[in-house]
């Protein structure tokens, strides 16, 4: 009799743990959306502190940001309730610098989307940086709420507008497309005042 009761308790405990696990790890997609100032290439060139062409070496784990801009590494459930969103840093190996200066051959570029355990934070205006792909990037130092988390990270000017993927000799953004050589020449001419 006691054995049966014990087995029943173990079964109930096992089912409870399974249920909690299913609940906890059920993926949830959260979406933030908004509006952006419309920038053309001239705006991007003027506003950028750094314009580079480089390849995405790696993408670091996404992190939560707290209400006061603090990094919620190893966030507890209580911390997550205070969180305002996820961000993700990517390491870019720089091949060519068109504007600005950098000391290291690689830079870190931040986007405000990501995935942590069971939560996906999406924003369709944010750029994507796929590992192994090459991009032309119009960048400024992060000046937003996450600026104090790993200072020195860059963000794209105007979110997706400042990111052009390099494919088959073309520079392609979500709303713009150039022959890469022509865009590079345009930027160089613009910066030299010869435009």
């Amino acid at each position, binding site marked *: 009799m006691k054995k049966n009761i014990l087995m029943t308790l173990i079964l109930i405990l096992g089912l409870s743990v399974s249920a909690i696990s299913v609940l906890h790890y059920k993926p949830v997609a959260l*979406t*933030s*959306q908004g*509006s*952006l*100032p419309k920038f053309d290439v001239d705006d991007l060139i003027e506003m950028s502190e750094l314009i580079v062409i480089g390849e995405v070496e790696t993408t670091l784990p996404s992190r939560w940001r707290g209400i006061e801009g603090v990094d919620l590494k190893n966030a507890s459930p209580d911390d*997550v*309730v205070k969180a305002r969103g996820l961000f993700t840093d990517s390491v870019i190996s720089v091949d060519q610098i068109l504007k600005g200066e950098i000391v290291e051959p690689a830079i870190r570029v931040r986007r405000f989307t990501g995935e942590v355990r069971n939560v996906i934070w999406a924003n369709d205006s944010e750029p994507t940086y796929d590992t192994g792909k090459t991009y032309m990037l119009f960048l400024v130092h992060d000046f937003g709420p996450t600026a104090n988390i790993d200072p020195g990270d860059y963000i794209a000017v105007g979110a997706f507008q400042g990111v052009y993927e390099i494919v088959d000799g073309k520079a392609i953004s*979500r709303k713009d497309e150039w022959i890469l050589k022509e865009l590079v020449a345009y930027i160089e001419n613009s910066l030299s005042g010869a435009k």
Partner: protein
Amino acid sequence: MTIYARTAFNRGKMHIYLDDTFLQTVDLYTASLIDQNPVFSTTFAYGDHTVTMQWAGTKNASSSGTAIFIDKLTYTGDQDVVDDTAFSYTGTWTNSSSCNGAYNNTCSHTSTSGAYATYSFTGSWLAVFARTAYNRGMMNVYIDNTLVSTVDLYSANLVEERVVYSTSLSHGSHTVKLEYSGTKNAASSGYLVFIDKIIYTNELVTVDDEAFTYTGTWNNDDSCDWAYNSTCSGANSSGAYATYTFTGSAMTIYSRPAYNRGKMKVYLDNTLQATVDLYSPSLINERPVYSLSFPYGNHTVKLEWDGTKNANSSDYHVFIDKMTYFTAAPTPTPTATVTNTPTATSTPTVTLTPTSTNTPTSTSTNTPTITPTNTPPPNWGGSGTCWVGGSSWDVYTVYYSIDRNSIPTSLGWDAYIFAAAETWNDVSPSHFVFVYSTNSTNVISREEPPNDPFFLAEVYPHLFFPFVTISEKQMAINPLYSWDTNNTPDPSDPNSNGSTSTYNLQNVLTHEFGHMLQLNHPSLDCEEETMYELIERGEIKKISLEPDDVDAINWKYP
């Protein structure tokens, strides 16, 4: 209640709040002066309410000014709603049961000479509701066969359940007749006359204690500052009673419960109805202590000192402040929107059972009821040529508030925030509405967007662990940008106010309220749509919706 104004060529828009909750922005513009024009009417649960009318600072394109004008406000204590289906129709009418957006989804309309509709009722106030639109003509309104008004049903945009005529009447039986006139104003493209519903009410009469007849020893005091009309009557001795005779159907007795009150017997037509305990540990002014409904007719109420009390009271005093009654029996329809809700706490439960022969049997109770809207559940997802739907609220009314720390009223942004929400509210036949409420946790603030600092504004979810339910949205307006509230088009570009350094607030917020609706960005080829994600300085074209934006809300929230 109904709000009346003198509408004119130079009038702007006016925000209306009830109990600090934003209800609607009303346009007071008309091409010519109209005195005592009923510009807004609404219903709500019986009780104490505060109405606020606020200058909006906006206007429609035809108006030469933004002035608002208030004439008077009327309200009533009980009402009956009559759908258009209850009218008697003469001539050629289309009686439709698929009028989405109309009361009960039914409507009746005509474009034929000689057509009219009639309805007879017993009451003392009447309001006629219609759906106004760009193709409407004028409608003749008769009361008891006398032409009392020719109302213009034209409006530039569709407006559902709009009060187009209201009037006070001598109490009694009346017949309203609504007639096709065959005339229209110059702006209208048609002559169509449209009927949605009428509301009529019975008059609520207030009787001061001074009007009662007193027997026995009473203290009739005219210096009761706390009381109605500053008069009250009290008794604390055997044989004291007060009577009042009236013609009506329902009554409520008001007193001032206190720590030293005893019990009071209430009789109607010499039949004991209840023994009411007037004790309260603290003083409560103008408190309804007893309410009763009964068939319409001549009645006498008698209020008598009982000489008993509950154990907590220190004495046996009874007090009379006032009484109210309705001058006729309510004639509820199955869809009556509001019933009387006296809040007496020390009285037995009362069930309204009017049995007047000239009215149908009532099914009302003391519980307020809200008219259900016959709408299907909102749709998730969806897409069109230039719109993309996301998830959906599971309700049709979403409340929002404004963070007063970052957007104080003095900033002057309220009108533009309300107008942006109103743009979506105005879409027909969608039933979705944003409603401003100071208590809402869907907060609009002026702060850096929580994520990318390049965003002009951002709508984002309020987080809950473990993310099973996401039921709140926040909207952040980026203070790093310069904002303007100039909605006037530049002479050289109707899509811009001409600014080259600032972003137009209402333009951006109309887009963001689209996100609050859970609409996503369309393709970047859709540059004309409000939900297009990129915005230029001075741009104002997103203030008005494009057909795909309208399709989106109509599909998601039909």
